[in-house]
């Protein structure tokens, strides 16, 4: 199955899902077949004055993940993730990364067709 990226507050499967996409602490990239994962830091996006969502989308695209689970995605990041062919599961919040993946695998995370955050510049 395709790799899943989850915005995360920490480096392991029991970390909380970071509800912010662009300014998430990092991303856990999971191979759903083996549940093997790696952590990709997003600190470089967190410090940006603008364009954090665009840069975070670049980082996620570079991992090869085809699915993203996160809380809120702004309009530019949404556009970028769409361009990269990444399926977005939004409003994933108040869960651990592991729980988020389980919920996605159970089919309980609907695929977003529009951004759910207004972003900071529009």
């Amino acid at each position, binding site marked *: 199955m395709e790799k899943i990226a989850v915005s995360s507050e920490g480096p392991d499967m029991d970390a909380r899902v970071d509800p912010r996409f662009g300014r998430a602490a990092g991303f856990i990239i999971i191979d759903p077949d083996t549940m093997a994962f790696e952590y990709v830091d997003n600190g470089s996006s967190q410090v*940006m*004055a*603008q*364009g*954090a969502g*665009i*840069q975070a*989308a*670049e980082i996620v*695209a*570079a991992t090869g993940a085809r699915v993203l689970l996160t809380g809120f995605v702004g309009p*530019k990041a949404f*556009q*970028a*993730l769409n*361009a*990269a*062919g*990444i399926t977005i599961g939004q409003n994933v919040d108040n869960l651990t990364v592991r729980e988020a993946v389980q919920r996605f695998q159970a089919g309980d995370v609907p695929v977003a067709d529009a951004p759910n955050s207004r972003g900071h*510049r529009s």
Partner: protein
Amino acid sequence: MIVAVASGKGGTGKTTVSASLASVWPSPVVAVDLDVEEPNLHLFMNPDISAQDPSYIEIPEIDDEKCTRCRACTDICQFKAIGIFGEVVMTFPEMCHGCGACWTICPEKAITPGKRELGQILSGRSGPSAFVMGRLRVGEAMSPPLMRDVKRHLNSGNGYADRDIIIDAPPGVSCPAINAVMDADVIVLVTEPTPFGLYDLALAQQAFAPLGKPMGVVINRADIGTRDVYDHCQKTGLTILAEIPYQRDIAEAYAKGQIIAAAVPSMRALFETLVGQIKTLHGQPSMAREVKHA
């Protein structure tokens, strides 16, 4: 001489002072509204606008065939106006500040400058004064490039060359405010004697001091508030150039969209004195030495 009328705090009376200075200045001036996000000098000067020119910023256009996805452009861009997502290259024109780094660095020459409209430059006359204003397009976030374009317009002839220029600056102390005052010979800071006025006056003073320009203060609504602004000016060596009283006839003239120096006799006298004060300030050595104390 270029006089910039600025303030840290908004609503202190920059436009009131700018319009009045233009109306009493001994020779015809160019009155310039550089508060491009919400220009309002025209409401008082009622200019006849004779030209309206669009202003553009240069933004990247990428030739997808030539692009090798080397990432040089997206790495150098400080504003994420170009993103590369896997094999997909995208531009985000509204993020672009028009610096040109991307098409300069592109090894394949795959990026060429296109354009995005920033707003309009309107010019005309108001009595003997020439009038120029920038007006940012609704939805546009970047005002300094439009302000630079307005300033280029001022340098492009149009009979402005021999005139003194009065700039109505945007409030605040960020890039637009700095952009409006950086070419001035004298900065007039308009404030009010309130804690808000004082706080933002001090910020503006600190922000503009490194430019090394002579600065003076006009205190508006001078009878309200406290003496703290006066104490601050004395302590930091800022000259108080004029005090506009908190007076009903001034407020009424303003509310009717009149220029107070033209409508209220005592104000004509006050602004004529202010012109003299500004000219004296212009002749004085700069405040650069104050930088380290600011």
